[in-house]
């Protein structure tokens, strides 16, 4: 008849099973997929994330160098993180804070110049354009070695990376 009594007494003597949430927050687990973010300075705008995303919440503009994500459409599956060839996408283990406004993620990076045509065009007037070009090749040089180990280390994104610039020309 009183089978629940033992449990009731135990619960009276032990501490509460719940927390006073906004004041007492549990530490998030290490691998928790809380928030999607992009280290935009490393991004090569290859659009792999945009293509692979199941909820199609990511929009990449390679020409303008922008990376947009609608966090309300995102399903936090981290498929884009798995496929990113330069590993600039990552999941943070804290979830987004409540907000009264509908905030989208808009990141502005430096658009990467196309290697072959850029070199050919700047080859002749290289001498005059030296001061401006000095900054650009540095930016170019950074992603090239990054992109190179990508295809070796991870077979999947290899075909996607070169596709993006060609789609951009059209």
């Amino acid at each position, binding site marked *: 008849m009183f089978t629940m009594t033992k*449990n009731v007494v135990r619960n009276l003597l032990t501490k509460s099973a719940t927390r006073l949430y906004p004041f007492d927050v549990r530490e998030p687990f290490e691998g*928790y997929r809380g928030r999607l973010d992009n280290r935009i300075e490393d991004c090569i705008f290859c659009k792999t994330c945009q293509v*692979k995303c*199941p909820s199609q919440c990511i929009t990449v503009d390679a020409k303008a160098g922008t990376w947009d994500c609608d966090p309300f459409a995102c399903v936090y599956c981290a498929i884009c993180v798995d496929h990113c060839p330069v590993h600039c996408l990552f999941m943070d283990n804290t979830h987004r804070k409540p907000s009264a406004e509908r905030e989208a993620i808009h990141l502005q990076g430096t658009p990467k110049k196309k290697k072959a045509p850029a070199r050919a065009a700047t080859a002749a007037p290289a001498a005059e354009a030296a001061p401006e070009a000095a900054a650009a090749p540095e930016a170019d040089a950074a992603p090239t070695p990054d992109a190179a180990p990508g295809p070796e280390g991870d077979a999947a994104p290899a075909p996607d990376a070169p596709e993006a610039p060609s789609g951009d020309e059209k």
Partner: protein
Amino acid sequence: MARTILPFGPQHPVLPEPLHLKLVVEDEIVLEAVPALGYVHRGLEKLCEIRDVNQMIQVVERVCGICSCLHAVCYCQGIEALLSLEVPPRAKYLRVIWGELHRMHSHLLWLGLFADAFGFESLFMQCWKVRERIMDIMEATCGNRVVVSVNVIGGVRRDLSPEQCAWILEQIAIAEKDVKRLQSTLLTDYTVCKRTKGKGVLTAEQAYQLGAAGPTLRGSGVAQDARQENYAAYGGLEFAPVTEPDGDSYARSAVRFRETLQSIDLVRQAIARMPGGEIVNPTKAKPQGEVTMRVEQPRGELFYYIKADGTKNLDRLRIRTPTFANIPPLLAMLPGIELADVPVVVLSIDPCISCTER
């Protein structure tokens, strides 16, 4: 009182999801029940025409909020069968571990809801308190509480380290103790038995003929479980379907209670026997042909039909969820019972309506 038709649902305190039953009653005795479905149809099967084969994993995970992992397992196994793709043994064991954790949390959720259906709210809280530990295991090992997103075609995306395995074993040992503490209340308490014993009886013949699935079928004494097909790593684990002979609401809750303990045992076995090695066998091939795949969900047998034509999109995807199979048996259970027992009997099949309507 003369015959009256009473609506039960779509909004009803015991129903987490909208199921509408038109109950034909006479003097508070149900004579007939007529179901009406379609309140939460989302057209997820049709999405296979827009989303590609890999993206569909995330779509099928959202067919059911509670057994997302098993939907993805069933879908991935179907595509792997079409591609004749060998899944690494470690991935198969990991699928079993996460699948069984899903079964545990689903059954604990249901046991709580069932207690709530007959008005035992403190028992409801106790069940959900135990469940929270399982949810934490899921969050720490998969990255999310409910929609775990760990399955991909050819294997799984996350691995378990030896420390994580040890931590899981530690946590499920505490959960087991907590579950066993609820046993006397759930299965022997006078008020619980009064509300569940002899309510909504489904005989073994009826269950078999009406195509009942899962605990609804096993609660009527039919030892049938899709895990006996030895999909994933179940071939390497010791396991026997849990059955109860009576076929009433009590028997169905007892089956689920015992299955919760069985899942704890299966997780232990799987962790002990898990081999090392790769966790995924990646592929870029496009599936072609048609296949049917069955897995055991917490609510019963889940059935997938996949037709692919060698393009990146599937031709047709058909999902039959266990609740869909359990609605005809439910209609056979209702006639003859009192109106006050309808919520308990309806809940005893563990209805998952958004699963059913996809």
